[in-house]
């Protein structure tokens, strides 16, 4: 398992999650968990995904999701899960 956290922040509108999920499907990335909140018209979303079967380099996924972010008008960040585990778990 190669777990990665994808976060998305931006103005909510129809099709954001669909576009992101399509990108995951096209690149054989499995979604393990999705959490989101919307405050007024803004969306905060976090997905935990598995890159195990993805054939692309991590840097390509980072760039690819940045492009997806531009398309849907949101900021998307991709980070390995360990940084969050280290900071928030003893």
């Amino acid at each position, binding site marked *: 398992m190669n777990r990665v*956290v994808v*976060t998305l922040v931006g103005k909510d509108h129809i099709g954001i999650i669909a576009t992101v999920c399509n990108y995951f499907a096209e690149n054989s990335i499995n979604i393990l*968990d999705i*959490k*989101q*909140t919307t405050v007024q018209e803004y969306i*905060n979303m*976090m997905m*935990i995904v598995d890159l195990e079967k993805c054939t692309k380099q*991590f*840097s390509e996924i*980072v760039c690819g999701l940045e492009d997806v972010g531009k398309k849907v008008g949101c900021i998307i*960040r*991709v*980070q*390995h*899960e*360990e*940084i*969050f*585990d*280290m*900071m*928030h778990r003893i």
Partner: protein
Amino acid sequence: MVELNEVFETNTMICGENLDVRTITMGISLLDCCDSDLDVLCGNIYGKITESAKDLVRVGDEIGLDFGIPVINKRVSVTPISIVGSSACRTSGDFVRIAETMEKAACEIGVNFIGGFSALVQKGMTAADQMLIRSIPEALSVTERVCSSVSLASTKTGIDMDAVKLMGSVIKETAEATGHRDSIGCAKLVVFCNPADDNPFMAGAFHGVTETDLVINVGVSGPGVVKTAISKVRGENFEVLCETIKKTAFKVTRVGQLVAKEASRRLNVPFGIVDLSLAPTPAVGDSIGDIIQEMGIEYVGAPGTTAALAILNDQVKKGGVMASSYVGGLSGAFIPVSEDRSMAYAAEIGALTLEKLEAMTCVCSVGLDMVPVPGDTSAETISGIIADEMAIGMINQKTTAVRIIPVCGKRAGDTIEFGGLLGSSPIMPVSRYGCKAFIDRGGRIPAPIHSFKN
């Protein structure tokens, strides 16, 4: 499983509060490069550095990308060159050649600074130590990336006042040698009492002789994160304030631990230490001065500043120690005047004076750092300032340092713009009363007594 709020808290620290990994520093021992022929020695040094650290920059950038946290600097520290060059160097010019070799190696591997053009003379100077020290002005003027440090004192040995006197002149000469560039050479030169062998931060990094062949040391930062955290407990008592700093330092240090372990694994180089220092930059919101002001001090330098800094330094250590398996380096709060926007402003309006800064160095993690003073400050006065700072370190069993810049052609109240991470600052006035007869005595100040602590 991580929670949504935890993920966004981490990312707010990174994107909004300037949390970063300040440096991954690879320590490289050059003891196996020693040779009595200078050409062979320089070839060995170049070969060892470029081979050992060839992947350092790439790996640092990759780790930054993987975890989504900026890894600002990738650097190298080496064994003090006065030891490495002692059998090959016959003149100061020979040491300059080693500095040029270090510069060439640093350019080749892409690091922005290389530390270790150093001498450890806290008890006395060998001929090689003296030659290296005398070569510093030229070495720092003909190179961009080489950093130099000289250890002048320790709690165990006392203060080498001959070396203190010599360094006053060397700092002046370095300022003059780089006078056409606002004496920038002095920003790459620091003198120490009780230096740390594993410090990853420049200009004082060197690879101590008790260290292993290669080592990875990581310096974290994050003044902005601490400032934001304590702004949420405004008006609360000191218990709450201290707990808040401690918890925040823990989180920041955990990131350093992760990056250090990962860099160590990917480079196949042993993990040394994480340095927990809060290191400011001139960027808005990345300031130690802001933290002190957030605690309730009107401007840095006002009464209460030393106590506030003591709290910060101690709580950062307490929070960070549990977060990392090995803590080392300088670990605490830096107070570099020109690199910290709030401190530079406090100096400009007269709230922060050199004398108050000296008092603050009793409780901060290093010492007088990035302090620009008038260009006509005498060598003896600089030696006097150094002696005071060395005495504070020696008596209080802590690391202290002086990185002072007598800026050529500038007077008190003028402003100096170093640019980049070095920032800008007003020239701070220095006492007009002298200490020449004291400095001219020469010799050593004996080590202090370790009992009867009052």
